[in-house]
């Protein structure tokens, strides 16, 4: 007869007295709004207060250094190849003797630039990197820029500061 017995037949009869008087429904609605009047607002005042976006949020790029403070990037170019938006460009250079403290591998990125207007924050560079050098940090967003000069982020903005290291949940 019926496919399931969960079908509920809605019969449109006349409204009951309470329904036709409107007033009980109005009082009920006003009770609901009054309850919300005293409940806590859900608003987050954005520039002053920031919401925690989770451990895997893809924010601003960072070029990691290792424990000794040497840059991990070896300028292999896999991130630039993986990048679907072609936002990454770099110039490689050979490490001189005496620079072992600065660069971990024998080849390093002399110039490493990310165009933040092109970047789509997909995180493919992070996945492609064999040296665990580039990450998209979960705690910082790329700030608003007002002119095109500020758009390209060089090594000065990207390389990790040793006094302010970036750590993710689960990292040692």
């Amino acid at each position, binding site marked *: 007869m019926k496919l399931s017995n969960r079908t*509920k*037949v*809605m*019969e*449109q*009869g*006349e409204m*009951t*007295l309470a329904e036709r*008087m409107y*007033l009980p429904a*109005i009082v009920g*609605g*006003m009770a*609901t*709004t*009054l309850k*919300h*009047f*005293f*409940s*806590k*607002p*859900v*608003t987050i*005042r954005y520039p002053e207060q920031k919401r925690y976006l989770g451990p895997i949020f893809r924010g601003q790029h960072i070029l990691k250094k290792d424990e000794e403070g040497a840059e991990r990037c070896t300028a292999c170019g896999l991130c630039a190849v993986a990048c679907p938006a072609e936002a990454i460009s770099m110039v490689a250079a050979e490490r001189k003797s005496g620079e072992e403290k600065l660069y971990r591998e024998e080849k390093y990125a002399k110039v490493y630039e990310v165009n933040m207007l092109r970047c789509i924050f997909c995180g493919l560079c992070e996945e492609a990197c064999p040296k665990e050098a580039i990450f998209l940090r979960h705690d910082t967003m790329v700030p608003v820029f007002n002119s095109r000069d500020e758009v390209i982020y060089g090594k000065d903005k990207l390389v990790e500061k040793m006094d302010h290291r970036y750590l993710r949940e689960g990292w040692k």
Partner: protein
Amino acid sequence: MNLLSDFFLAKAAFIGIVFAITLGIAAYSTYFERKIAAFMQDRIGPDRAGPFGILQPLADAVKMFMKEDFIPANSNKWLFIAGPCLSMLTALMTSAVVPFGDTVTIGGITFDLQGIDVNIGILWVFGIVSLGVYGILIGGWASNNKYSLLGAIRAASQNISYELAMGLAIIAILLFSGSLSTKAIVEGQQNGHWNIFYQPLGFIIFLICAFAECNRTPFDLPECETELIGGYHTEYSSMKLGFYLFAEYINMFISGAVMATLYFGGYDYPGIEFVTAQFGNNIAVFVGMGALIGKALLFVFVFMWVRWTLPRFRYDQLMGLGWATLIPLSMYNVVVTAFGILIGKPFTAGIVGVVLLIGGLLIHDQLFVKKKIA
């Protein structure tokens, strides 16, 4: 002669104070409207201008003044300007007869805390409120815009419809007081004999009609944004629009004060003898003035509360409610009140009247209304 000039000075000062209070409350009503809306929707609301955003009305006023004061080319210019002026004028004139307090004696001179105590006080309120429709009607017509005109027509027919029920609700009050003077009505309710206890049905009718008269949700059809892109003030900008919006908030406050006067004992408050004995008559009277303003503000809150709770009525529902429900109900209320006064038990009569009404409706329901099957 000296006495006369003193009298005029005192009256002018008092009217100035009442204007200042009314305008201040109207300005801050815009802020509280937004705040209350925000709280009811679990938001915070305006909080950028000053601490908690309390300078928001100031910022809004500056914005209103800075905007281009535009008059449409095909409008009737003088009427276009006259519309908001008339709205504002009538909104402010109503407060003249509201008794804000009893008499105070300062420096041997007795002042009456009321703009003017005329023996037709409540008729004055009615006359001015009816005139208020002209502000909207003229503004809507002078705009030469079909949406404005539709809004104005709606406002006019709505106000006329609801004034009838409102008047009948007041007649029941007049049966108690035996006078049209607002002062006499308030004095008859002193010491806790508030009319709300004798007239619960009358108060509900009056409240609903007050919503319709103020063009507030759920009866804000004259200015419904979704259908009429703003209704009668579609073409208005700058401070002319500000006047219309201001007039609406003033009307809310004044109708709150009128409701407090008619049904909630005006400046009466519990413990008035104690305050009089402890601090003297003047302090007691000023506390009473505060009590009246507090009651009016409570009604302003109810106006806003309802606005953020209920959706808008459809136009035929609005007219049906006015003509087919409220007018018969208020006639019934008048008959019940008159009967109660005749037998000398108005309180019992009021309660029995409501019980009989609901009982009668229930019986009618059982006999004639088709029941839902499921």
